[in-house]
Structure formats: structure tokens, C-alpha cells
């Protein structure tokens, strides 16, 4: 058995039993990353990785290892990493060598995990296909002419192609779950506030949340335990104890109540995807769960509400990228205004510019009430729908994406890209936790099942996903040529 065929949990056992060293493990994955043609990485940190692996080996030898000691990972390039380029997939941050670590980076360093490099992503996390990266599109390992999903496309492709045992991702409107679904891996977006946002380059601050991207739910439980927790440097971080997510993985699903929103199975959903999702839900019935149709009447308004709220927040957040203190600055600015305008115009890509302009417009005098305030009120209605449904059921299930991965370059206009986010956006607007787990193959491409829980129920979601993965082997399927 080669290292890349093992799960994080299995690698952890091997390291702890001293069957192999972190240096051996890390060297193996570095070689895979260097030989890969998926464009999943923006920066490969091979030298640093070997230094970290050596340190991990000495810690393992001293008997002080913890959950992720010596385990390699790909870190989404949105997390600040001290001394390492942190571009967020944007030209404007291409020169940015972070002078500090994000809390997530710090926690991974403290556990002595080994960073293989920084994963490619849609520019500043805006996109659903990873086609908006300054560093070029990432290819889906299941079919290199297709997108891996986005914005955490590099993170998802790297796990699917077994270039890394796990990745980090962030999810503002589906950016962990949708690429996880399109690449056939496990992805978890935790409850808003569960993982610190400190040092995670902000896109839309009331929606952004970091989480693990892995082969299995068991692995996601291990990673989440390490990265979650209160952080006083993030004013929206929740002061709540982090449970041991591994402990409840084996709980029974007997009596679990699953809600199936009828709005998630209406027009626009691809037949092949629909069938796989319905088959997966049947599997849960055989595990003792009951299934019931529910309704989220405001579901379709998630797209318009999100595409006002997120651009408003981003237009404000991205005003800090101005060519003065860090990042890209244009050549020979003639005055201060020229410096701002040209640095930003040359530094940002088209999609980022569109969202900044929509946000500036929706927040401007005379339009604020009609757009931004209206969207915030609609957000409340969307969120209330979930709370009504959670009075009757424990979790909600449905598709993550209405289709399988599409061809690179096939979606030209912005709105057709936005429509593919229909099932994921409402979860961020409400701040709920949700997962995507592999649930089948349609047209030779993976399909992900969406499992949405109420606030702070990550433990239950991981348990549900793990039980499904004991029963099925969809999460063990790999793209052709990857084994």
C-alpha cells in the first residue's frame, strides 16, 4: 500500500506505530505534487515541508505527538502564512509575503502538521469553478477538461488526486462543499464562528468560514478538532468548547429524522444528480433514519440575497487593497488617485471588479434601502425557514450542486455561474454547518450529497457522514490513473 492510498487516520496510526517517518511520507507527497499537472498549487513549499517533517519526526520519537503531527496538507492560499506568499489567487496580492500567521495556520503549526504548499483558488474566493484565479484554472482530476469547482478548487483537486491527505478550505457561499462535491471528496463548512477568521483574507465577513477537506468524514473530524475553537483575535469567534468530534462517529442513526426540501428537487436539477441523491437518502433509511418532505419556501431568494450581501461586504473589505501598504502597486503613479485606481484596476480580475462595483452601487445613497437593507431582511426570511424545518427534523439532505462539473471555459456570463450556487448559498446566509460527501458517480463524474444541520451540530453531521461511509464506498472511488 502506498502512502497516498491511506487515509489521514491510517497515516496517523502508521506514524504513531513508527511504521514510517513523516520525512518519508512528506517526500512521497512532495513528489506527487511536483509531478501533478492539475495546477492545484500556487506555491509549493517543499523545503519548508521537509524542515517541518524532520521536526515532526523528533516530536513523534519523544512520544509527544498529537492528532496531525507529521501529516502533510495543502493550505488554501487565503490563509496568511508567515514568510510564505499569500496571494488569495489574486495579482494584487502576488507580491504579498505574509508577516504573520492566520489562527488556522498557527493551530496547524502548533500541532506540527506539514504544509506542502498553498492551494490554488478563485481570486479572493469569488467563483464556483476556479477559473477566476490569476494563476490559471485548476483541472478536475476526474476529467482534466472540467472545472474542479470553486473557490477552494485547488484544495479539492489536491485531495481527489491524492496529492495530499487533507486540505484546508473556506466557504462563503459553497466554496468548500461545491468543489468537494465536484471532485468526489468530503468537505465540511462549520457553523459561522466555529473556526477563527483571523488572518483569513476576508471576502464577505458575515459569511466566511473555514473548514476541512478530506477523503473521509473521520479525517474531517480529526482536522476540525485541531482548527476549531475560540479566538479572541476574531470578534465573531464563538466562545464554545470544541467537542472531540471523533468520539461520536460511531453513534447509531436509528431514529434520525431527515428532511428533504421539495425546493431542492425542482427545475434545474440534473436527472443523473437527482437519482444519485435519492439513492443515497434511501441508504440512510436502511440505517434506521426516517425521511420526510419539508419546505424552505424562500430557498430561491438565496441567490439574489447573497449576490447583494456578499458584494456589499467585499466592496468594503477590498478597499484595503490599494497599493499603499502591501501588495501590487502600478508603475509610476502620477498622483494618489492614479495610484489607487491603476493599482486596483491592474491588480483585480474581472469577477472581483464586478462584485466590487455591484457592492458600491447597492451601498450608495439612494439605493441602500432598496438593495442592501432589502437583502438583509430577505436573509432573515431564508434563515427562519431553516429554523421552522429544524423543529420537525434533525438534518436536511439534498444535492450540493445542480449538475456535475462543467467544462472549463463553458460558462461565460457571470449570472450562469451564480445560478449553480442555488443549494449552498442559503446555508451561509443562515450561518449553519453543512457537509458534502461523495454519494455516487453520474456521467463518470462524482456527485456530492449535502447534509445541513442546525447550529453547532458538526458532531452529528460527522457522525451521519461516517455511518454512510461505513455502509458505502463512494468516498473510496478515485479518478482514473490516480491509484
Amino acid at each position: 500500500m502506498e502512502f497516498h492510498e491511506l487515509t489521514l487516520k491510517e497515516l496517523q496510526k502508521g506514524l504513531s506505530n513508527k511504521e514510517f517517518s513523516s520525512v518519508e511520507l512528506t517526500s512521497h507527497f512532495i513528489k506527487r505534487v511536483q509531478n501533478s499537472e492539475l495546477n492545484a498549487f500556487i506555491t509549493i513549499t517543499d523545503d519548508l515541508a521537509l524542515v517541518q517533517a524532520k521536526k515532526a519526526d523528533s516530536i513523534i520519537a519523544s512520544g509527544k505527538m498529537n492528532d496531525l503531527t507529521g501529516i502533510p496538507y495543502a493550505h488554501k492560499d487565503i490563509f496568511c502564512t508567515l514568510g510564505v506568499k499569500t496571494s488569495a489567487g489574486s495579482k494584487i496580492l502576488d507580491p504579498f509575503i505574509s508577516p504573520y500567521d492566520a489562527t488556522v495556520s498557527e493551530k496547524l503549526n502548533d500541532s506540527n502538521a506539514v504544509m506542502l504548499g498553498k492551494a490554488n483558488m478563485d481570486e479572493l474566493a469569488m467563483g464556483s469553478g476556479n477559473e477566476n484565479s490569476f494563476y490559471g484554472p485548476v483541472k478536475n482530476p476526474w476529467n482534466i477538461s472540467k472545472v474542479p469547482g470553486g473557490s477552494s478548487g485547488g484544495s479539492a483537486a489536491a485531495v481527489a488526486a491524492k496529492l495530499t491527505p487533507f486540505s484546508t478550505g473556506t466557504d462563503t457561499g459553497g466554496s468548500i462543499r461545491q468543489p468537494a462535491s465536484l471532485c468526489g471528496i468530503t468537505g465540511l463548512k462549520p457553523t459561522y464562528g466555529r473556526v477563527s477568521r483571523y488572518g483569513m483574507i476576508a471576502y464577505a465577513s458575515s459569511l466566511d468560514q473555514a473548514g476541512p477537506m478530506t477523503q473521509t468524514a473521520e479525517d474531517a473530524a480529526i482536522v476540525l478538532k485541531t482548527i476549531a475553537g475560540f479566538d479572541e483575535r476574531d470578534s465573531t469567534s464563538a466562545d464554545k468548547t470544541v467537542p472531540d468530534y471523533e468520539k461520536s462517529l460511531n453513534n447509531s442513526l436509528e431514529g434520525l429524522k431527515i428532511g428533504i426540501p421539495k425546493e431542492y428537487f425542482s427545475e434545474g436539477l440534473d436527472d443523473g444528480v437527482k437519482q444519485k441523491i435519492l439513492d443515497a437518502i434511501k441508504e440512510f433509511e436502511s440505517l434506521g433514519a426516517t425521511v420526510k418532505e419539508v419546505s424552505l419556501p424562500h430557498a430561491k431568494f438565496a441567490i439574489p440575497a447573497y449576490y447583494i450581501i456578499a458584494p456589499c461586504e467585499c466592496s468594503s473589505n477590498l478597499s484595503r487593497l490599494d497599493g499603499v501598504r502591501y501588495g501590487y502597486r502600478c508603475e509610476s503613479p502620477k498622483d494618489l488617485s492614479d495610484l489607487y485606481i491603476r493599482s486596483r484596476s491592474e491588480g483585480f480580475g474581472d469577477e472581483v471588479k464586478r462584485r466590487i462595483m455591484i457592492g458600491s452601487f447597492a451601498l450608495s445613497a439612494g439605493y441602500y434601502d432598496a438593495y442592501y437593507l432589502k437583502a438583509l431582511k430577505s436573509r432573515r426570511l431564508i434563515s427562519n425557514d431553516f429554523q421552522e424545518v429544524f423543529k420537525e427534523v434533525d438534518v436536511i439532505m439534498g444535492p450540493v450542486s445542480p449538475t456535475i462539473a462543467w467544462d472549463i471555459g463553458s460558462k461565460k456570463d457571470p449570472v450562469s455561474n451564480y445560478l449553480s450556487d442555488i443549494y449552498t448559498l442559503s446555508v451561509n446566509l443562515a450561518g449553519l454547518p453543512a457537509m458534502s460527501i461523495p454519494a455516487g458517480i453520474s456521467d463518470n463524474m462524482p456527485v456530492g450529497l449535502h447534509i445541513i444541520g442546525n447550529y453547532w451540530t458538526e458532531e452529528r453531521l460527522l457522525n451521519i457522514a461516517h455511518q454512510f461511509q461505513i455502509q458505502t464506498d463512494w468516498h473510496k472511488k478515485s479518478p482514473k490513473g490516480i491509484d
Partner: protein
Amino acid sequence: MSLDNKEVSQIAYLSRLQVEESSLESITADLNNILNLVEQLSELDTDSVEPMAHPIKMTQRLREDVVTETDQSESFQSIAPKTGKFHYLVPTVIE
């Protein structure tokens, strides 16, 4: 609501972005498509709904008013495009 080229140029300026004359037409069309999409919200009656700016009910924490950050000006300035001693350099603002 539909924006014309002139309004789009003004929004771009407010966003400190430059729109090339040659792409103004297509950017205006893109923005109008997005505005058409978000227009759907007008179907909703939200008169008595409280706006939701943040997903989790929480109040801002208070802490002791003490200095917690150390001086890192040197490391922060080392990554800036142009600096002088303890300041960032930009083109002259006042002659």
C-alpha cells in the same frame, strides 16, 4: 433598475476602478444582468422583517484596555511597495 454607461463609469470611479472605454458596454450589460437577477427580491414582502446583518446572535466582547500588540512596524514595512522611515510613501498629495 437599469444602469447606463455613464452611471457605470461613476460607480467604477467610486470603487476606485477604471473601466476601459472599449469594455464599458459589456461591463454595463453584465452589471445589468446581475441587477435583474437580484431584482427578484422585490417579490418579497419584508415590511415587518428585522434585517439580519449577522448569522449568530452574539454581543461584542469587551476586554481590558491594554496594549496587546507588539511593535512590528519593521516587518510590516518590509513588504510595502515604497516606504520611508516609519511611513508609507505615496505620490505628493499637497504641493
